[in-house]
Structures are given as structure tokens and as C-alpha cells.
């Protein structure tokens, strides 16, 4: 009997799996339509835009100072960095020189928020690989950082911190105490977190070679930030185009080699240590500065006057109203300013026609650009690895969807 007649010729059947849309509190609202062969992913098709809020259109109708709250809602894990990035863009356009002390204060805020961002991302990698413990430990430090933000600006998540021209107020004594306490406590907590995961056999087996990307592909896909550095490219905006006096600081840009989940985790882990060192350096530098009080540049046309001046002087009252109503003149021009956000190069491309609002404002949102590599990164991987890959990429839905 001919053997071929017995063979059942069956076309391979694939399953289509809708991964998401997930609840916003998990990783944000994501949906992936996956073509599965058993547990292997053949194709993934991300759907994005569930929380699109038309930020670029909104920005065309808002005075410059009112755009800061929009930037809060992009990468909401590190909103202070977005706020500062926007202030610096507007300051670049207006040619405002910021005092050294304010620049260092801003560095402290930005590095604190980088730590908060990386704490969330790294501990969630732990959760997605089955280790809830670390997540519960380190959230204490994130809470401490949010308390510092609360002390500085009154808000925790959507901070709206700082103003064009400086900060809205000086750091209080309580804020300095909280920062000092964090710097004392965090190293121990972080060490404990690292002891749980870094050399943990299970964690390593789960994350090494999970969702890798080569340096070439990462660059082609427009990766920036820790994801690009994990692939071995030492590109960091803080070093390449220093802003807010980052050139005064001595820090290492950690890089990985394989661009996989473990490397991304390790790069973020090392960045947190570097951020702590930057904060310490900034505090030392502040101690050495003669200037102990300034918290904004002397630009009455952009920076809101003190309430005392508003009530008691004519000029104060005029500036107050002009700024609040968005009637201050911004020069005509076109600027691009970028900062190293929690997950990559966050850029602001601003066209001003001299009016009260930007003529056009485009946000270069890092995760919108690199998330498109996701289907390529999870092709042929297990479903569980796909989840892990996504959490290790630090994709923030608010930023993705603008």
C-alpha cells in the first residue's frame, strides 16, 4: 500500500488571539491581535490610540504656560521630566537664561522622576515574570519620591511642576529632608530588590534572550533611551546634547549587549544608581554655589510675580494678568529641544508665529516610535514572553497615544 495515501493532508490552522484591550491600570490600554500557532506567536498586530486625546491639536489653542499639564499626561510615570522638557523648549524659544541653581534643582527633580519611572518598569518586569514580591517592596520608594513631588508642587502623578523661567517655588526644608531620607533609604531597598531578581535563576531563565533586538534593528526602528542602550548603543541625550547643566555631572551611561529583557532590566537598574549619584552631586554643587535663594530667572514677562507684588504693585498686577491670559509675546521661530525621558528621547518640535499659542507643536514621543518594533521582537516567541517583552519596553499608553 502506498504510504502517501494514509497521510492526512491538513492545512495548518492558526488561532487568532485578542490580547487586550487591557484595563488602563495594568499597563495602559493596549490591544494586540495575535496569530498563534499553539503557544507560539506567528504575527502580532498592535492596535493603538485607545486613549488618544489630541494633544497636538489642543496645544495649538493653549497659551504656553497651559501646555505643561498636557505634557504631564504623556509619560505619566515620569511627568516632571516632560514638564521640564517643555519649559526648556519654551525658554529656548524665548532665549531665557536660567540661573545655575535652578538648573541643578531641575536636575534633582528629573533624576528623582527617572528613578520613579524605572522602579515601576523594573518591578513590573518582576510581576510579569511571576515575582510579585519585589514590586511590593520597591513601591515604598516610589511612594517616597511622590511625597517629595507633593512637597514641591502639591501633586503626585500629574505634577505640572515648574514654570517657564524656573520653578514655581523654592524647595522647602521639608522637601530637602525627604530627599536626604530617600537617598539614605533607597540604596538598601534597591539592593534588596536586586538580590531578589538579578541573579535569580528563574528570573534569568525567563528574561535572558526574551524579546531581543540587535543594535542595527533598534536604530532602524528609532529606539532611544534604555531600550537602545540595552542593545549596546551608548546614546543618551543628557550626554550628547546636555541641557540643564548635565555637562557638570559625572555619571556613567550603562549599556547592555543583547538588547533582551534582562539587559533592559539591568540598564534601568544601573541607571537608578547613576541617578542617585547625580542627585548627590547636584546637592553638593548647590552647597558650593553662592546663590542660595533664586528659584527662577528674572523674566517678569514670563514668570508669574509673587502674590504680594500682584496685590501691592501696578506692574505685578499687569504682568500677572498678561501671563494668565496668555498675552505675553513669544518670539517667532522654530525650535527642537529634546530631553532624556524615562524611556527615551522626548522631543518637542515647536513652531511659533509670535502668537499667544504655538502655531504647531509636535511631540517626539519615544515609545510611539519604538513600539512598532514589538511585532518583530515577539515573532516566534511564547505568549508569556510577549507579555514580558512589552513590560520591559516601558511602553506608556499615555505617551503612545498622545
Amino acid at each position, binding site marked *: 500500500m502506498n504510504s502517501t495515501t494514509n497521510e492526512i493532508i491538513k492545512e495548518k490552522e492558526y488561532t487568532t488571539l485578542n490580547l487586550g484591550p487591557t484595563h488602563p491600570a495594568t499597563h495602559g490600554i493596549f490591544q494586540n491581535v495575535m496569530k498563534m500557532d499553539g503557544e507560539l506567536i506567528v504575527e502580532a498586530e498592535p492596535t*493603538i*490610540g485607545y486613549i*488618544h486625546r*489630541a494633544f*497636538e*491639536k*489642543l496645544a*495649538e*489653542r493653549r497659551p504656553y504656560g497651559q501646555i505643561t499639564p498636557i505634557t504631564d499626561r504623556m509619560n505619566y510615570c515620569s511627568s516632571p521630566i516632560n514638564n521640564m522638557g517643555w519649559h526648556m523648549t519654551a525658554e*529656548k*524659544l524665548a532665549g531665557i537664561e536660567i540661573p545655575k541653581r535652578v538648573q541643578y534643582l531641575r536636575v534633582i527633580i528629573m533624576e528623582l522622576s527617572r528613578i520613579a519611572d524605572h522602579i515601576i518598569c523594573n518591578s513590573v518586569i518582576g510581576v510579569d515574570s511571576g515575582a510579585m514580591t519585589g514590586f511590593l517592596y520597591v513601591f515604598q520608594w516610589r511612594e517616597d519620591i511622590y511625597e517629595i513631588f507633593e512637597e514641591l508642587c502639591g501633586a503626585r502623578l500629574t505634577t505640572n511642576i515648574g514654570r517657564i523661567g524656573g520653578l514655581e517655588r523654592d524647595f522647602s526644608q521639608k522637601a530637602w529632608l525627604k530627599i536626604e531620607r530617600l537617598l539614605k533609604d533607597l540604596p538598601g531597598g534597591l539592593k534588596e530588590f536586586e538580590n531578589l531578581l538579578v541573579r535569580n535563576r528563574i528570573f534569568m531563565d525567563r528574561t535572558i534572550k526574551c524579546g531581543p533586538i540587535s543594535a542595527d534593528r533598534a*536604530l*532602524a*526602528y*528609532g529606539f532611544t533611551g534604555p531600550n537602545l542602550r540595552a542593545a549596546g*548603543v551608548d*546614546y543618551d541625550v543628557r550626554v*550628547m*546634547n546636555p541641557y540643564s547643566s548635565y555637562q557638570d555631572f559625572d555619571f556613567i551611561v550603562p549599556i547592555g549587549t543583547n538588547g533582551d529583557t534582562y539587559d533592559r532590566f539591568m540598564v534601568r537598574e544601573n541607571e537608578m544608581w547613576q541617578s542617585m549619584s547625580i542627585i548627590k552631586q547636584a546637592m553638593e554643587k548647590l552647597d558650593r554655589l553662592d546663590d542660595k535663594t533664586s528659584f527662577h530667572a528674572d523674566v517678569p514677562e514670563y514668570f508669574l510675580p509673587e502674590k504680594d507684588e500682584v496685590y501691592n504693585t501696578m506692574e505685578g498686577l499687569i504682568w500677572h494678568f498678561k501671563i494668565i491670559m496668555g498675552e505675553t509675546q513669544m518670539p517667532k*521661530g*522654530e*525650535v*527642537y529641544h*529634546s530631553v532624556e525621558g524615562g524611556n527615551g*528621547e522626548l*522631543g518637542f*518640535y515647536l*513652531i511659533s508665529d509670535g502668537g499667544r499659542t504655538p502655531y*504647531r507643536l*509636535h511631540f*517626539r514621543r519615544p515609545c*510611539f*516610535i*519604538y*513600539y*512598532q*518594533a514589538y511585532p518583530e521582537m515577539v515573532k516566534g516567541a511564547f505568549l508569556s514572553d510577549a507579555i514580558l517583552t512589552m513590560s520591559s519596553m516601558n511602553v506608556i499608553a499615555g505617551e503612545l*497615544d*498622545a
Partner: protein
Amino acid sequence: MSNITAELAIEKLNNQFGDQIISSEMLYDFLTVTVAKKSVKDVIKFLHDDAELNCHFLTTMCGLHYPDQAEQFGVMYQLHNMVANFRIRIKTFTADAEPVFETITDIWPAANWMEREAYDFFGFRFHGHPKLKRILNMDSLEGWPLRKEFPLEDPFRADKDDKMFGR
């Protein structure tokens, strides 16, 4: 680390493309070159392939709309040479009512979603794009939201009318 000056880049582009380079200027710290629409892809490809300029990274791109200009629609690309830290912005404008640009997804896969975004918000088509459809807005949306004539809010809403300051 080699040093690329704006003059060198402009000279190279002028030698290669001549009258296709419409203007070039420094806008703050950023070299901005305006290019005729039909050769914008060649210019980008040249910047990408040239061994010295080596603009290997696409930082961002976005659509532009100036309703008062004759050439009202435009696209802006920002390229980056990370080794020399050289950045350049390429702009191109067109008077077409329904502009079609060449895709650059074959140079950078990163351009895929950026071009979809430009399509989604401005209605620009990109010739050769693998899957040009809306990305952030819903598929059934009518109109192109970031064009200047598109209203920010529903004009028929009466509940938020403010006589003093408008809407």
C-alpha cells in the same frame, strides 16, 4: 569623532542636488533645509547613505499646514548622526490639495507609524507605504484633525460658550 559643520552639509547637498535645495538656514541650533518635493526622498537617501554625513537615525517626522501659503502642506523630517552628533531637518512643501509623498519606510522601518500618523492627522498619502491607514483616530473619523480648518471642539455645542474669551 568627526566634525560635521552645517556649511559642509549644505555644500554637499548643493553639489549633489543643485536647484532642488530651495533654502537652508540655522533655526536656533538646528540646520533646516527646504527641499523641492520631488527630490525629498533622494535627499534623505543621500544623507543616509553618504559615508561622511551618515545620518543613520530618523529622530522624528511630522506634517505641517500653513493655510496662508500657496504651498500649504508640508512634511518635516529630522535626521541624526549620533556618532558626530549632527542633526538636520529636512522640510518640503507642496501646493497639492491631496498631497502624495514618497514613503521612507524602506530606509527606516521607524517611519512606518510616523507616516501613518501624518496620514491620520493631515491626510497625506505616502506612496509605497505598506499599510497606510489611520493609527490614533478611529477609522470612521471624517476629516483631518491637525489641518488648521478642523475645529478643536464641536462647533454646535452651546454649553461652553463664553462671550468674553471665545471658546
